[in-house]
């Protein structure tokens, strides 16, 4: 047995120092994985957790599932493809090709989370930088609306602590400042100094105060401290979490104004705390292909709009067949909206049994990206990361199934 490199696809940190020891097809040892990565690897080897290919709850061959899925897709006049955030760039490209061939709507989870932030970065409205660019040079780190300890357990250990602590006679000394803007005490806030504690939903007011002070006006003592902290730094990084996105209801214009204003004193970049390992890849790929990061319809050329968002499609009964790829909307999205899917055929790709595979008519049990199938992905900071295959499995990849479906529906 030997140790094999595994680029962890448990989240968008894409930790590349994880190793596994494989005997046959079983993982016997895991090094350097967080609780999320270890759970992914543990579930990979548990046959009770893996999803088989099935049609209407009956286990089938891959060919039969492809047959039924293509039939459902061909007979539905309005198709919706959703997900692909946990797929490789290669599979995402195949998914976009299929959407185009079908004249379907395509969307991903960024349409109700980090989409507006990533769009601001891709269009240049917000400055960003890669982790390799900030390494050893940034001297101020701000976690804003993000408890990385829970959402991305190795984020601090991987991207902050190793580069910004130094062993001196007095012990380990921090070379950069770590602070956070938060609404509650958290594991992350416990290692930050200072902590800017806001009331839930108070981000917009805080940003307005910071802007006011930056322009020479008055503001709260907390906002003044924040501006002073920025002024003293040479290179600041804001790790923007979902707390900020939801508090701003996805409207980053005031935040972008603040970043621009503060940039008169320091270099400031923003990195989204993306959850799904390749959501940024989906956004960048679709942006290159269509000029939009999500909510695209190929029904008549390329169209974009709120009506092409997953939740709006479901809420307003705009889809007659939904293809969900590597996503589990039935676990976390509003159930009062998902109930509107009753009677709508669902086709689902997932390595694991989930509430969404249970609701689907056709299920494709797929290989786990980064573990059982290789490819490429875009990390949260925009760097492209190769994903080598770490172990073999008999499961088909998302890309393979998508290409087979495209052949069927085009032929």
């Amino acid at each position, binding site marked *: 047995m030997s140790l094999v490199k595994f680029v962890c696809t448990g989240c968008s940190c894409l930790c590349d120092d994880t190793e596994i020891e494989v005997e046959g097809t079983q993982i016997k040892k895991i090094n350097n994985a*967080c*609780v*999320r990565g*270890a*759970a*992914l690897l*543990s*579930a990979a080897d*548990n046959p*009770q*957790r893996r999803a088989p290919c099935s049609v209407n709850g009956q286990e089938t061959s891959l060919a039969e599932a492809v047959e039924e899925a293509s039939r459902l897709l061909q007979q539905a006049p309005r198709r919706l493809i959703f997900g692909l955030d946990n797929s490789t760039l290669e599979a995402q490209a195949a998914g976009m090709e299929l959407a185009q061939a079908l004249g379907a709507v395509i969307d991903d989870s960024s349409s*109700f*989370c980090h989409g507006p932030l990533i769009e601001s970065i891709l269009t240049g409205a917000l400055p960003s930088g890669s982790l390799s660019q900030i390494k050893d040079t940034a001297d101020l780190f701000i976690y804003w609306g993000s*408890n990385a*300890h*829970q*959402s991305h*357990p190795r984020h601090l250990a991987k991207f902050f602590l190793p580069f910004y602590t130094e062993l001196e006679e007095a012990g380990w000394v921090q070379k950069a400042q770590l602070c956070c803007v938060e*609404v*509650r*005490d*958290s594991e992350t806030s416990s290692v930050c100094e200072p902590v800017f504690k806001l*009331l*839930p*939903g108070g981000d917009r007011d805080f940003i307005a105060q910071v802007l006011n002070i930056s322009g020479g006006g008055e503001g709260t003592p907390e906002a003044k401290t924040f501006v002073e902290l920025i002024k003293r730094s040479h290179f600041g990084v804001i790790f923007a979490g*979902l*707390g900020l*996105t*939801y*508090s701003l*209801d*996805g*409207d980053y214009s005031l935040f972008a104004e603040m970043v621009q204003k503060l940039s008169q004193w320091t270099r400031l970049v923003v990195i989204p705390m993306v959850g799904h390992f390749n959501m940024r890849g989906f956004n960048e790929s679709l942006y290159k292909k269509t000029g939009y990061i999500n909510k695209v319809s190929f029904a008549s050329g390329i169209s974009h709009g*709120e009506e092409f968002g997953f*939740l*709006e499609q479901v*809420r307003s009964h705009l889809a007659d067949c939904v293809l969900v790829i590597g996503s589990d909307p039935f*676990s*976390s*999205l*509003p*159930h*009062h*909206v998902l109930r509107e899917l009753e009677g709508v055929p669902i086709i689902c790709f997932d390595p*694991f*049994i989930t*509430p969404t595979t*249970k609701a689907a008519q056709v299920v494709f049990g797929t290989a786990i990206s980064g573990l059982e199938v290789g490819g490429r992905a875009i990390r949260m900071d925009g760097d492209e990361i190769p994903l080598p295959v770490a172990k073999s499995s008999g499961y088909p990849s998302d890309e393979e199934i998508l290409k087979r479906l495209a052949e069927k529906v085009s032929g």
Partner: protein
Amino acid sequence: MNPPVSIVIVTYRDALQKAAEKKGQSVESQERAAVIRLSPGDLKALGVEEYGRVKLRSDVGIVVVEARLDRSSKPGFGYMPVSRYTSELISYDPTKAKLPNFKRIEVQVEPSDEDITIWAT
């Protein structure tokens, strides 16, 4: 029984709950998910001890979960991990907001003798 208390729920990520869910440990996952963390004042107003059950009622759904004490929580706010429980309470109405209200779920909380909500699998 004490009258209902108005609470705004803010969801958060719980790595252990998500890990248990991924591993198929349904009991552990459910135990970590079916909780609401409330301020000492709100627990007192509800007349509920820590680990007591409370019913949460939003515009779109109802669930029964366990109450936990969170000394750092401000009165009027409660914290729950993102899970099947919160998805029952979260609403999405684009005429009011662009995004679902993951971080601002308005609920009425009341003491409850009912069992913790569990869905058929």
